[in-house]
């Protein structure tokens, strides 16, 4: 059998978003820009951060996903995520280690309605320069992420494959309290896509809950313009049971 993650669930319970239930209405998110950068990381700390319901990817890798959503029910906002890639059974999934938004209403809604581990940042920037696209996240006066896409070239949107994400939440309802993994699986309609070299200038490991991860190899970066969504929650999983046995369908 493939290896499983080795996250000590007790060590993260205190910081998990709380959810009463999994009922939420979807958001349509047209005209979004998404910068995604992939890096291979060392095995030991990555496996220690992955819930035991999931299999680690071979090789271990993370993606930085920085998005700008200009039209949403709570107004425009940016969202930056760090995902540790793995497998939920046979399906590739990105486990969200941490996320930041620059809009209080968005951070609150994403945390309450989908359970995203989002905190408010002073600044999340996604900006195109003449020679690169860069993204930064600033929190409490400190830069906690500084990344870029360089040497980009146009590719087809059909070449891009976005992986659905999962994240940990604490369910507080009386019937089924306890931690759960929530899957979020948006759809994407691509209008533009570029591919290039990912540059990791700075990552505050503590701020992203990736202490000890060491980037060992850059993979690739992409920038896309898409229409996307945040759909209703379809699947939740027991974080300590292999997903082939511990998955519940919500919708």
């Amino acid at each position: 059998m493939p290896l499983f993650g080795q996250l000590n669930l007790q060590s993260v319970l205190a910081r998990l978003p709380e959810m009463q239930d999994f009922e939420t209405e979807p958001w349509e998110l047209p005209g979004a820009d998404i910068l995604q950068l992939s890096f291979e990381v060392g095995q030991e700390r990555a496996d220690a951060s992955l819930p035991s319901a999931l299999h680690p990817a071979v090789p271990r890798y993370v993606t930085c996903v920085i998005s700008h959503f200009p039209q949403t029910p709570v107004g425009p906002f940016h969202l930056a995520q760090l995902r540790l890639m793995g497998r939920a059974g046979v399906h590739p999934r990105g486990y969200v280690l941490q996320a930041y938004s620059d809009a209080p209403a968005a951070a609150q809604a994403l945390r309450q309605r989908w359970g995203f581990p989002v905190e408010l940042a002073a600044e999340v920037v996604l900006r195109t320069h003449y020679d690169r696209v860069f993204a930064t996240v600033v929190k409490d006066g400190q830069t906690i992420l500084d990344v870029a896409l360089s040497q980009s070239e146009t590719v087809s949107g059909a070449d891009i494959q976005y992986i659905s994400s999962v994240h940990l939440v604490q369910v507080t309802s009386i019937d089924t309290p306890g931690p759960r993994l929530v899957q979020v699986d948006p759809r994407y309609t691509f209008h533009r896509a570029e591919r290039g070299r990912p540059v990791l200038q700075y990552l505050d490991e503590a701020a992203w809950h990736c202490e000890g991860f060491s980037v060992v190899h850059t993979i690739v970066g992409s920038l896309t313009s898409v229409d996307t969504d945040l759909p209703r929650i379809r699947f939740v999983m027991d974080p300590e049971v292999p997903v082939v046995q511990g998955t519940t369908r919500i919708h």
Partner: protein
Amino acid sequence: MKFGLFYELSVPRPWTRESERTVYNNALEQVKLADELGFDQVWAVEHHFLEEYSHCSAPELFLTACAMITKKIRVGHGIVVCVPEFNHPIKIAERTAVLDLLSGGRLEVGTGRSATWTELGGFRTHPDTTKKSWDEFVRCLPKMWTTETFSYEGEFWSMPPRTILPKPYQKPHPPLWVAVTSAGTELDAADRGLGSLGLTFAGFAEQEQKIKEYRRRIQLCNPVGDFVNEQVNTVNFLFCHEDDAEGCRIGRHMATTFNYLASQLVSAREAFPSKSYKSLGLLPQLRRQAVGPDSQGEGAEGLALGNPERILRAVKRWESVGVDRINFLLNCMEEIPQEQVLKSLRLFAKEVMPHFQPLATPATTPVGSAAQ
């Protein structure tokens, strides 16, 4: 219809000093028995870094060992990775020629380009280039085997005039194949006059359509070798048991375990957007079928699992859609005890194989005759 074996050589954790050796030894014992039972061919993959799924990174050595302990069975690279970071083309030509000599002309050469980021990234290969380098390699290989002095200036490699030695035992050269996982690769095979080495477990309808298109297209091919190798090879699981329910149960467990492992692979497309990897190859299908190692659900259609009667029906059906050869995966992660694997092979050979006549003549035609 011809029958063969197909090896990924999966090794379950924990990896002990003996575990990999046991897997290799078991495979060699199976190959020796298969040779005695009349199986026609044995194929071995080339994979790197694919933990548990495949520890078969030096197939030329495994196949040499197969050739040394057998008399008739043909030995096939399924496939050689035709990407310069993995294998230099001169070395491919030399190694394969030696293996053909040592095996007494029993070599088949499958070609391909790798489909996982795990492997491509490991060799620091840019995914955009693999299809093109594969194309250069397959056009060069037959000439490297057959011409006394060879030189080449290409996009991915070059060499000044040299005599590449030794030359293959088979004349003009061993049959060439292409691994077909992604949709459309069967047409690449046909256009070059190469055999279609199917590595997916697609259903009858999909395969039939692919085979029709392959056979239509190869009539107009511009062959890269000295002959057209118009043959369709496919892969399947085999577990044959007197008790149908028991055969299906054990066989499905093997198939599901394999599919689950295969679905763990980080495909090139998943990690690295590239027009060279438009599809996920065999992964979507395997993911649909692999709900988990403990699944008791129905397997895909056409799998050679169950009693001889059921397997006979499946193989007849494959024959009817145009398949020339079937290669069987016999085990996965050593989930089936070796004695049962050998027993399954014997039963298949006794009860199923006699219903099929080997092709009277090889389906290979000299260059220039394909379109006549």
